[in-house]
């Protein structure tokens, strides 16, 4: 059942259009990630769904009913949700008072408030900080206060705007664990904006890709990462190899795509003559010194242009008639002695190639 839905949403600031004809719905209990680059409109969309901002045009539906643009009823509906901002602002009060605020505003009794606050502070690991002024906390602790402040309200919908964007990796992991713990415990509907697609993948069931104010694609992580629907989405999800070409043959679901200097084979239904992009994720390419021992359909002789180390991985840029980027482990990079000028075979399976329609612009 859809709990929160936006219909034909348009919004902007001054002459700048931020959201364009946007339609989206999130089901009860669902964890939904809005992914997209900075400036795509994620925060604005989240703010409109959180009833913090009024859209220029369009409707917000909550629990099947249209949300009024002002008044008591809007406040009542807003009180069923809560929002965690990207840069959380704590009030210049004690940690306890910060967390208790929302409950007091809802008219909770002193005893109930105290009990709930104590429990949530324990959950987020801040039980010893009750009387500290919240302004004196570190970034990670501040984010946990912000989260606690929202969670203590037991909202039906929790909106999270880049919950870990400003945190070090350790604090970020803590927050991520908390989010998935809460989602599991309370069946809370969560909508989270993130530019980190792996965070989206890890925490969310379904994702929506927001590009330039439009919802470019929705689906589960695999859909979006493996089968992006257009070039922009493909770029954002890390499809580094995107080659324009034309389908020259379709043999029972295996297409041959001519990319100019080479042909790539892939699993696809596109008919012969279709203009397409052939996309391969860099981690789906293996490198070998000989082409013979693989059952993969695609194997290209390539000359390495540049090898850079990225954490435990090595990023290899090659030229095999077209430019190809592969990610291999550092160990295998060392074993194969990969370096600029060396010649290797770039091998990938037909099932790993995603064929995407190319719209002539």
């Amino acid at each position, binding site marked *: 059942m859809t709990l929160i839905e936006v219909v034909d949403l348009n919004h902007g600031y001054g002459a700048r259009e931020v959201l364009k004809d946007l339609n989206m719905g999130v089901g009860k209990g669902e964890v939904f990630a809005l992914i997209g680059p900075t400036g795509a409109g994620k925060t604005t969309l989240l703010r409109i769904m959180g009833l913090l901002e009024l859209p220029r045009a369009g409707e917000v539906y909550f629990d099947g009913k249209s949300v009024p643009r002002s008044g008591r009823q809007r406040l009542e509906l*807003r009180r069923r949700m*809560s929002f965690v901002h990207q840069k959380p602002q704590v009030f210049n009060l004690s940690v306890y008072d910060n967390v208790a605020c929302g409950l007091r*505003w809802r008219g909770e009794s002193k005893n109930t408030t105290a009990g709930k606050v104590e429990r949530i502070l324990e959950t987020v690991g801040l039980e010893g900080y009750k009387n500290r002024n919240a302004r004196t906390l570190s970034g990670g602790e501040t984010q946990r206060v912000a989260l606690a402040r929202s969670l203590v*309200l037991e909202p039906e919908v929790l909106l999270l705007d880049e919950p870990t964007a400003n945190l070090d990796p350790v604090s970020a992991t803590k927050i991520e664990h908390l989010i998935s713990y809460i989602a599991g415990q309370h069946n809370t509907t969560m909508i989270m904006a993130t530019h980190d697609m792996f965070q989206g993948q890890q925490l969310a069931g379904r994702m929506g890709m927001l590009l330039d104010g439009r919802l470019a694609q929705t689906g589960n992580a695999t859909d979006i990462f493996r089968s992006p629907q257009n070039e922009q989405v493909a770029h954002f999800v890390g499809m580094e190899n995107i080659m324009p070409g034309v389908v020259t043959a379709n043999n029972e679901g295996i297409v041959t795509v001519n990319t100019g200097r080479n042909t790539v084979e892939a699993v696809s239904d596109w008919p012969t003559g279709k203009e397409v992009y052939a996309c391969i994720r860099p981690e789906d390419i293996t490198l070998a010194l000989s082409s013979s021992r693989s059952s993969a359909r695609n194997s290209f002789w390539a000359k390495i242009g540049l090898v850079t180390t990225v954490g435990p991985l090595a990023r290899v840029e090659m030229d095999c008639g077209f430019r190809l980027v592969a990610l291999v482990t550092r160990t295998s990079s060392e074993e194969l002695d990969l370096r600029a000028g060396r010649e290797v075979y770039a091998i990938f399976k037909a099932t790993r190639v995603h064929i995407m329609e190319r719209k002539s612009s």
Partner: protein
Amino acid sequence: MTEIWHSLTRAVELIVSLDPGVIEVVGRSLRISGTACLLAALICLPLASVIHFHHFRGKRALTNVIQTLFFVPTVLVGLFVLVLFSRAGPLGDLGLLFTPTVMTIGQMLLIIPLLLGLTISALSGVSKEIVDTATSLGASGFQAGWLVLKEARYAVLAAVLLGFGRAISEVGCAVMVGGNIRGATRVITTVITLEAGKGDLELAIALGVILLLLALIINIVLNRLQQR
């Protein structure tokens, strides 16, 4: 020179011995100015919130007027209140002229612009995100406004203290509407004027020293607040 020296020592004696005359005048000053300040705060804090949180035409002009009135001469306020409460004036029937009540009203009117203006700027010092956060946690407009006032509490308190300082140290309004009646409407500043005019320096100096001490106390409290 010896006369001045004599006055000074007498002044110190008056203070140290807690002279009943001195105590009476200082007590009345504190009462009148304290009440004026409290009433002004009760009016200005909500009013400042309303002005701060609402967008309306002429808001900037209003702020300018308020800020101009920071420096309104005390005798002008005195004149206004005198006309208002004089027998022939619109509020003359109340018979409040030359009473501590009307002095309180005068001082309250005098410091309202200062309190209002400084409270508005104190509220402006609280970031918009605080209001936003409060709203997102389910605060109503009123609840969010109250929270912002609490966030700005040190700056607001500083504004109130400044208002008190201006009220207790003014003389123009107090003498005009109070009339400087012995045992009824004499306050620190009016007594200093009167006694100095008579050439009776000891009481004037004693009260002057007390006024300075009060200023010092206010200043220390203000400094403490600003360091937060």
